[in-house]
C-alpha cells in the first residue's frame, strides 16, 4: 500500500533536515510514540502504541534512517512486532525542496502488516496510514514553527 503527500514546512531546508535527524523531534511527531532511544547512528529502538480498527497494540521495534542525501532526502523506516496483534513494517521516503524561505516536504509511505492487524483491520490500513502520516507532518510543521519563532 503506497500513500503519499506533500507539506509546506515553515522553516529553511537546513532546519527541516536537522529536525528530521533529531530523535527528540521524531519522538514528538511519531503518533503514539512512547519511547525512542538511539542504539547506533541513525538507528533507534522504539515503542509505539497503534490502534488500527478494532486492534490496539504496543509495537516494539527498530526505527532506522537510511539513504541519506544531505539535505535533500532520506528514508525513515520501521519494523515492529505487536505481539498477538501481529507485525507492521514500512517506511517513508522523504524529499525536501526549497520553496522560498519555506521547505516543500514530499513523502511516500509504504506499509505492510501481518497477523491480527491484517485479519481484522486490513480495510482500515490505508485510511489509518493516511491519518498517521498527516498527524506526523502536522505535528512536525508545528514543531518547525516553534523552532523558527524561538
Amino acid at each position, binding site marked *: 500500500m503506497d500513500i503519499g503527500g506533500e507539506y509546506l514546512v515553515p522553516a529553511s531546508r537546513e532546519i527541516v533536515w536537522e529536525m528530521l535527524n533529531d530523535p527528540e523531534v521524531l519522538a514528538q511527531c511519531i503518533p503514539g510514540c512512547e519511547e525512542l532511544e538511539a542504539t547506533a547512528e541513525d538507528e533507534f529502538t522504539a515503542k509505539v502504541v497503534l490502534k488500527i480498527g478494532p486492534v490496539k497494540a504496543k509495537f516494539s521495534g527498530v526505527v532506522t534512517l537510511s539513504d541519506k542525501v544531505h539535505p535533500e532526502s532520506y528514508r525513515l523506516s520501521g519494523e515492529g512486532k505487536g505481539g498477538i496483534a501481529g*507485525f507492521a513494517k514500512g517506511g517513508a521516503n522523504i524529499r525536501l525542496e526549497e520553496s522560498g524561505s519555506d521547505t516543500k516536504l514530499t513523502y511516500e509511505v509504504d506499509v505492510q502488516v501481518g497477523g*491480527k492487524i491484517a*485479519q481484522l483491520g486490513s480495510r482500515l490500513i490505508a485510511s489509518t496510514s493516511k491519518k498517521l502520516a498527516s498527524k506526523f507532518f502536522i505535528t512536525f510543521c508545528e514543531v518547525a514553527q516553534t523552532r523558527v519563532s524561538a
Partner: protein
Amino acid sequence: MSEGIGARVTRKEDKRFITGHGRYTDDIVEQNQTYAAFVRSPHAHAEILSIDRDAAKAMPGVIDVLDGKQLTGDGIGNIICGWTVNSKDGTPMAMGAWSALATQYVRYVGDAVVIVVAETQDQAREAAEAVVIDYKELPAVVSAVEALQDGAPQLHPEAPNNQIFDWEIGDEAPTDEAIAGAAHVVEMDFTNNRLSPNPMEPRSAIATYNAIEEHYTLYTTSQNPHVARLILSAFYQVAPEHKLRVIAPDVGGGFGSKIYVYPEEIACLWASMKTNGSVKWTSDRTEAFLTDAHGRDHVSTAKIGFDKDYKIVGLKVDTIANLGAYMSLFSSATPTYLYATLLSGQYNIANIHANVCTVYTNTVPVDAYRGAGRPEASFLIERLIETSARQLGISPVELRRKNFVTEFPHQTPVIMAYDTGDFEAHLSDAMKAADWDGIAARKAEAESRGKLRGIGMSCYIEACGIAPSAAVGSLGAGVGLWESAEVRVNPVGTIEILTGSHSHGQGHETTFAQLVCDRFGLPIDNVQVIHGDTDKVQFGMGTYGSRSGAVGMSAIAKALDKVEAKAKKIAAHLMEADEGDIVIENGEVKVAGTDKVLGWHEVCLAAYMAHNLPEGMEPGLKEGAFYDPANFTFPSGTYICEVEVDPETGTTDIVQFTAVDDFGVIINPMIVEGQVHGGLAQGIGQAMLEHAIYDDNGQLLTASYMDYCMPRADNLPSFTIGHTTTACPSNPLGIKGCGEAGAIGSPPAIINAITDAIGNNNLSMPATPQKVWAAYNAASTKQAAE
C-alpha cells in the same frame, strides 16, 4: 398421522436445540479443566530461528508451554492425507511433512507453533502473547498458478515446483481428435472462488488423560469420530485405539470442515498427557477463518466440441487446484475423484479428458466443503453448456435436451456409471414451475422499470454415498466407505439404534427413527438414535458426501431385517404358527388370516425372558449390520434462477429460484426441504457474496464477518421446491442423498441468469455489484462501439 417413511415428522432433536439445551463440546467442563491457547504464525512463510518459552511459563496460572520439537520428540506422527493419488506418469503424490506444531518452518498464517496450557482461558491467551518466536521471513506464494511458475517460493522439499501431483482421467488422444473434427468448438476459462466453511459452532476439543489407566478421552467437533480415533491411533501414535475414546457430541454444522483431524486435537491430546490432566481448546472465529480447511479454489480451462447437430463429441478440461500449505485428509480426492468424474454432467459425451494439477501454496489447507468437487464440476459443465448455446445461437434448453442421457445404466468415460434418473422429468417440471416460457414478458416489464431481468438454468448431477469400498480402495482411498448399524431392542420393546453416521444438523435422530417406525409401526418416541461415541458404537465412517441416508440407513435396514426375522421366529413359536405367516404392523405381531396377535413388547419380553424360545435360539433381540454400497448414488435436478439487475449499481436481486430435485425415495420431506434451502443459501453465497482472499504476502484479508460476506435472509428469495423420483436401485431403501445438491446445482444457474441479464458472459464469482456493474458496462460499451 404416520411417522414412517415419507412423513413430515418434526425433528426430535429440535426440542433441545431450539431451547438452547444442545450439549456441544464447549459446553462440557471436565474436573480440574485446564485451557489451551495456540501461538500461531503471523507470517505466511518463515523459518523458525528460536522459540523463547520462559516468560510465558512464568505467567500466572500457566501449567506448561510446549513446542513442536517436544511433540515430535515424543513420537507424535505427522498429519497425513488419507487418499493416495498418483501422477499420470505413475509417481506417487508428493506429500510434504506436516507436524501438528511446526518445528522448523511455518507455511501459512495461522500455522500452530506452540501450545500454552493454563488454568483459565484468559491466562492461556495472555501467556501465548508472551511466547517470543524469532522468525526469518521467506517469500510467500498464494496463487496456485503462480506457485507452479519458475522461481516461485518453494514450500516443501518433497514437492519440487510446489506440485503435488499431475493427474489425468479419460483418454486424451481420442478427445483431442473428436474436438479437432467438431463442427463447433467453444472454449472457456473458469475460476472457482475459494471459500471459508463457517459452521455455526467453531471447532473445539477437550482431551483428558487418565494416567492410572493410560487412557485418553477426546470430545471433539467431528463429523466422523471413529475415523478420527483410527487416524489418531494408527498414524499419529497418540494412543492405541482401545485406550482412546472419541466422542463427538452435538455438533453445530460441519459442511466438510469437521471431517479432518486438525493439529489442535492432536496437540491437546498430547498436552493432556504432558500435563496429566484435561485440556480444552475452543477456536475463536478468527482462528476458524485462519485454520478451518477452505473449499474450492480451482482455475480451469475447458473446450467442448459439438457436431453439426449440436451433439457433444468431446470435452477437454485442464484444472489447477490449490491445496494450501499441507495436504489435508481428503484433499487429494476432492479435486480428482469427486470432481473430474462428474464432468460428464447429465450428458452423453463419448470422449472426455481432464487433467488436474494440485499445488502447494502459503494458504490454509483446502479440502472438501459442501459438495466437494461436484460444485466445481457442475459449475464448469453448466456454464459451458449455457455459453455454448448462446454462442451457437440455439436454445439452452434444446441444447441440453439433445445431449441428455436417456438410457440407464449409462457408463461415462470418467469412471461413473449412472444407475438411474429422468433428466427430462425435472427439466420440464422446473420450467413449468418457473414459467420459463413467460420470461420475455417479464424482461419487458422489468425494462420498463429500468431493470435488467435475466434467467438461467443448471442441470446438475452429483455422486453421493462415496462407495463402494473395493472401488474406492482401488482408487487409492485409505479407508472403506461402508457404514455400520446396531439395532438394540429392549425387553419392553423400545429400540435403540446405534449408527456410525454422525448427525451435525441433518436430523438423523428423527429420520433414522422414522425408518424403525415404518418397519414395526412403533411410535417415534419409542426409538432412540445413538451416535458419535466410539465407546457406544463399534465403528463407523461418519457423515459426509450426503451418505447417511443412502449408506447409513441402509445399514440400519439390514440390521432391522435380522431383528424382524428373529422376532417373527419367536412369535411363530409362541403362537404355534408358521414363521412365513407372521406380520408385524402397528406395534403388533400377528398371524395373517387369524385373530392370533401379540403385542410387539410381548415378543421382545419373551426374547429376554428366554423361558420359551425356539429350540437352540439365543436369548435377546439385538442385531448389527455392515452395509457396503454397490455403487455411488446419483441425485440430479434442474435449477432455474431468475434475477433482476440494477444497471446503475450492479445490485442483483434473485427474484425467483426454482429447484426440482430427484433424490430418490424421501424419508422426511420437511428435512429434505431444509437441506435444499441450506444448500441453496450456500450456493448463492458462493455465487454472489463469499470469497476468501489472501494478499500477495499471504495475509488473510477476509478473517472476520466484516470482510467475509455470508448470505443473509435478505439475500435469499422464497424458494420454489419440487421433486421427481426415480428410486436408487443400488440400495435397499432407494435413497440417493440430498445434503449437498443445493450447493452443487445453484452457482451455475445464478451466474447463467446474471450473464443473461447483463449481456456479458465474462463474469466471475462472487458476482458482487461492482463486478456485475463493470461487466454490464463493458458489454454496453462494446455494443455501442459496434
